[in-house]
């Protein structure tokens, strides 16, 4: 990871630019393609079209069709051939077009990609990066709004990360690509057009750590990806109501930086975890169980979870009632404080 983490501010002309999250990823891909000829992109429609979200726009024109490869329409094929290329020293960055279409590749991801380094006792590394746009609130049709992170996190051998802002998106993408391990980078598609400053000379914190985005003293909200801006907005509202909310961007699902979250929970003594995926069996359960164990004596309420309902992602006409929003987070905060009162 040296190249990506060692880079330093040169102090000369400004390395800071404001851009949408999607374009930060484009920039990261461009910079990695330029830095290492063994890095290549593969996926459906990523070439001339630049991907359905235009994240790879212009990259095939710049690097050629053998480095930005339009694949046949076959997700298992995309991941399976990426594995084969990685075995021979390449760093394929595979794009899966939408969250709901990752499942045909599930076998290659779970039984192969995740396990090959371990299976071969370390003889083979498979530094494949999988880019997976995920999450809802884009008003789309079925299979275009899902959040399958829990289904990857449970399988050891994969790293699963998700940025929430442009600067992180740039740096976490680069760190994912240079990692020797397979990394699934889950891109919060409803935030693709969220603008932010990207400093290409000052690396974001380690992609595999959480980050406290807002300090507070009464309660902590830990969330990731698309809900981070919601949590920050919730904290604003709560502030007006006299509650000081600490907001943690979890950033990395596997590894999980439970240390940072538990430290915060131990401080505020209350924790709410939020994600778009259904609560039941969701990754929030892992955070809740783990932090409860680590900070048990400090907590004054159970860790509460805010998530999607136990249903297939509903028709988008109903997604506003399905998705966690400020009100749902506030409700959980209130519920948490109710415990404090009655105890």
């Amino acid at each position: 990871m040296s190249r990506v983490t060692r880079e330093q501010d040169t102090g000369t002309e400004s390395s800071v630019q404001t851009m949408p999250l999607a374009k930060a990823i484009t920039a990261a891909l461009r910079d990695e393609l330029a830095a290492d000829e063994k890095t290549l992109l593969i996926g459906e429609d990523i070439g001339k079209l630049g991907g359905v979200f235009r994240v790879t726009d212009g990259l095939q024109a710049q690097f050629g069709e053998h480095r930005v490869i339009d694949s046949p329409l076959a997700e298992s094929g995309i991941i399976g051939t990426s594995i084969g290329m990685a075995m021979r020293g390449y760093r394929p960055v595979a794009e899966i077009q939408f969250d709901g279409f990752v499942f045909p590749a599930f076998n290659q991801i779970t039984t192969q990609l995740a396990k090959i380094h371990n299976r071969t006792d370390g003889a083979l590394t498979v530094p494949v990066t999988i880019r997976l746009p995920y999450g809802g609130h884009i008003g789309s049709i079925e299979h275009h709004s899902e959040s399958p992170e829990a289904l990857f996190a449970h399988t050891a051998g994969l790293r699963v990360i998700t940025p929430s802002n442009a600067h992180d998106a740039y740096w976490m993408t680069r760190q994912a690509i240079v990692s020797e391990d397979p990394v699934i980078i889950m891109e919060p598609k409803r935030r693709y057009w969220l603008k932010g400053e990207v400093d290409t000379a000052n690396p974001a914190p380690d992609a595999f750590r959480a980050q406290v985005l807002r300090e507070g003293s009464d309660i902590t909200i830990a969330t990731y990806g698309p809900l981070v801006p919601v949590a920050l907005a919730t904290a604003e509202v709560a502030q007006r109501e006299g509650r000081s909310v600490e907001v943690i961007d979890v950033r990395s699902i596997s590894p999980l930086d439970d240390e940072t979250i538990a430290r915060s929970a131990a401080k505020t003594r209350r924790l709410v975890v939020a994600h778009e995926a259904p609560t039941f069996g969701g990754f929030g359960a892992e955070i809740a169980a783990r932090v409860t164990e680590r900070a048990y004596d400090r907590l004054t309420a159970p860790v509460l979870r805010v998530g999607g309902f136990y249903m297939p992602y509903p028709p988008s006409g109903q997604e506003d009632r399905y998705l966690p929003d400020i009100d749902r987070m506030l409700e959980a905060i209130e519920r948490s404080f109710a415990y404090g009162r009655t105890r």
Partner: protein
Amino acid sequence: MEPVQLLSPDGTLREDERYSPFLEALDDAGLRDLYRHMALERRFDQEATSLQRQGQLALWVPALGQEAAQVGTIAALKPTDRVFPTYREHAMALYRGISAEELMATFRATKHAGWDPHAYNFHGYSIVLAAQTLHAAGWSMAVKQDERLGLRARDKAADEIVLACLGDGASSQGDVHESMVFASSYELPLLYFIQNNHWAISVPTATQSRHPLVHRADGYGFEGVRVDGNDVLASYAVAAEMAVQIRNGSGPKLIESVTYRIGAHTTADDPTKYRSDDEVQAWAAKDPVTRFRSWLESGDRADQAYFTQVQEEAEELATELRRAVLAMESIDIERVFDTVYAEPHRQVEVEKAWLKDYEAGFAEAGGDK
């Protein structure tokens, strides 16, 4: 392998020993009806596109250019034959009587699927590419099993065949292979219908296969035929011929219908990024609807009054589409809760109750949730 063509772009009808006899089933009214269905779909499609532009649909998937492929094929089947479509078979869906409202639910995102498959022997659109080809194989296995169990009279069961639709892009999916393996192993009454419209979003068919897709059938030892998908008569005749064979127990078959997607992949797509105007123009010149209309006109099989009447019907359909779409509201999330399982499920019930209380809290507080 040259695609089977009966009606050439310049309007001449060729004789074909194998396929022409199948056109005999169509009298002038039947021929006109093929046109009518194509014209209706075309108008419907235009209206849907404009509804999407006006923000009334989440998405639209135009079928422009593929009307003949779809209408010819579905017209060659019986209403009892079971169809497993992709998401672009609007002409087929309308042919089977699915209403504008039912068809648009998916695209207005008010429901995942808008109609009862059993009511039309026509399944809901399938978004995960190729998954439906295995359902079609399983359905076909069940058709044969019904017959064995005597659940239908032998010839009644033998009568039903199954159509599995897929695109050139989807043909690369592993599920298509597994479907064909099952179909050939169990000799299923299943017709694969690949609409090779030259593009899978921005990816040309050559990326899926340098070799004509029709040959996929060779790998499993069943017949495949390439047909000019912009020729409604060839589309009809080839499907009709195959349907007879399949009904007679031939086992599976495959049609590669060579056609062209004139519009964008979906309303979210920008085809200028990946294909040339020349290419689109060249195919527009082979337009299936005008080709067939000219032939009907030239042979005096339909008069001006007929075309006017179809045009009026198409306008009515467009009006009805617009009315239906504007009136359509999303099903409630309560209904979504109720259909996650067919039998009661504890977590679903608890969450449904929670949401009710939660939203009631806002109502009490005068909020709008």
